[in-house]
């Protein structure tokens, strides 16, 4: 009965969805990419806007997922061909036996001066290090993810014991409120929220976990299933080629109005707000040694029981 019910639902959907679907351009190969609407994926949008993918015979269909939660399940479920995610999610997926591969670099924090992802505390709290945070709480957007991992690593690197710090899940947009209302004692924030929060006063940056713990860390990655990489290697190669041209354009136009307008277009953040944060240059290639360092941190924090074979996870295309 339940199945009849599902079938009926699907049938209804088909009836309504049919007239809405458009015929894709016949000569372009379509790729569905799940993204998080943040500055990191600007090169992808630059490559789309500048026609780099089209020239290679690809049509890129981006699906934003604001929290990023749907990314890897959607990839495995076949809703997406490629997902923009982070290195920790990718390694966790592999650990769980899922067939995913990193096909291209997304971000890395090569220049600490450009790191706009601080740990903020209330200026009057007297907290200066991870040691001071023992017995207190720190806001992370999700537990067991990349933010959580580097927050823990930072606490340890600055003399504290991560086990004695409470990590509370707070969505990025609500972190500033939680901090000011004293619901948490510190928050690991990302732009534009970190920029807006630190501009208003009353909050102080005590550290930058990514650059303090692991300068040059590869945070973002483009991920595909191993099945797709094996079945359509030429398509994936074209995607990486188009994306790299997008990265080159992005790096050459870091301070341009055109770039800010592009980012504002898909993030919906005001251009004026975007201009407050420096845009870091983005990498053309993944750095295996950086991924290895992240993997070691994951083992240390019990996210992984044992090392994984990174040669199999990072596709040669990404290097």
């Amino acid at each position, binding site marked *: *009965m*339940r199945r*009849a*019910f*599902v079938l*009926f*639902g*699907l049938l*209804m*959907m088909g009836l*309504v*969805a049919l007239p809405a679907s458009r015929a894709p351009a016949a000569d372009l190969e379509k790729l569905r990419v*799940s993204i998080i*609407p943040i500055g990191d994926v600007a090169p992808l949008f630059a490559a789309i806007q500048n026609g780099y993918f089209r020239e290679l015979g690809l049509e890129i269909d981006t*699906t*934003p*997922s*604001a*929290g990023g*939660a*749907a990314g890897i*399940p*959607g990839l*495995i*479920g*076949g*809703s*997406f061909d490629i997902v923009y995610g982070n290195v920790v999610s990718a390694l966790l997926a592999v650990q769980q036996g899922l067939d995913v591969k990193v096909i291209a670099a997304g971000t890395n924090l090569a220049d600490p001066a450009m790191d706009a992802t601080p740990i903020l505390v209330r200026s009057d709290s007297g907290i200066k290090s991870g040691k001071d945070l023992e017995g207190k709480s720190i806001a992370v957007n999700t537990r067991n993810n990349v933010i959580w991992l580097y927050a823990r690593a930072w606490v340890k690197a600055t003399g504290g014991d991560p086990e004695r710090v409470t990590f509370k899940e707070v*969505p*990025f*947009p*609500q972190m*500033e*409120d939680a901090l*000011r209302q004293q619901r948490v004692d510190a928050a690991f924030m990302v732009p*534009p*929220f970190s920029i*807006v929060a630190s501009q208003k006063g009353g909050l102080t940056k005590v550290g930058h976990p990514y650059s303090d713990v692991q300068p040059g860390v590869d945070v973002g990655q483009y991920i595909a299933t191993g099945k797709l990489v094996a079945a359509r290697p030429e398509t994936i190669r074209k995607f990486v080629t188009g994306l790299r041209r997008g990265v080159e354009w992005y790096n050459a136009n870091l301070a341009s109005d055109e770039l800010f307008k592009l980012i504002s277009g898909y*993030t*919906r*953040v*005001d251009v004026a*707000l975007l201009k407050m944060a420096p845009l870091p240059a983005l990498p053309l290639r993944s750095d295996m040694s950086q991924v290895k360092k992240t993997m070691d941190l994951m083992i240390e924090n019990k996210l992984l029981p044992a090392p994984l074979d990174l040669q199999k996870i990072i596709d040669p295309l990404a290097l």
Partner: protein
Amino acid sequence: MTAADIPDDASIGRTRTGTVRLRPGSRAPGVLLIVALLLLWELSSRAGWIVSAYWPPVSHILAAAVAQLAGGEILVSLAATLRRAAIGYVAASVAGIALGIVLARNRALRCGLLPLIEIVRPMPTPAIIPPLILFLGVDDALKIFIVALASFFPIFTTTFVGVASIDDTLIQTARTFRISSTRMLYGVVLPATLPAIAAGLRTATSLCLVVAVLSEMIAGSSGVGYYLVEMQYAMRPDLMYAAVFYLALTGYALNRGFLALEARLIPWMGKT
């Protein structure tokens, strides 16, 4: 009964129960309370009692609401959400009513299916979304399924109870005339159960909209739910609250529309 159930139009004359007569203007205290709360909101934001990027003055929200409507974007989002809600709702209605009647009248099926339904019913929808993404993807199939699943239970339950509690005299009387089982269904069971079914359908009406928005907040890229999250991450709380306002308005309109339809189609509703 919620406030929205009570007709405020003097021309209606009497409520369905025929006992209470409402004068026009009886709603004034309720409206005043809403206005007072909104003023308090405005004041608390302007006077700096609450300092947060996510607590804009109401006047900013209203301005954003006007701009949003003029841009047409909110209508596109609302249409996407309503489409999903409607398809899920229709699927749930058909399945809920059919199963409710069949299970109430057939002992074997009842014994077979009721435990499954009772096990699935208390599951919180958000908790089962990750596994559902694996099977249904992140697009319409997922969202419509979630809407249908959530809407199914109130409809099924009220129908089931409605059929089971039909006055036995009605059934016995019909049997005396030896009418066919089809006629029994259409001539006796359905009319007697319609008020109960309508109650379930109405609960599901507000539920389907809520669940459609919720599903869009978790996955996907269109609809009001996605818009709300997007605006939160874009630091545009004025647009976010404006969208919430339109959502509330839509829910209210749906409920009113349902009541009007119900009064027209089931005039015996609320009478025994």
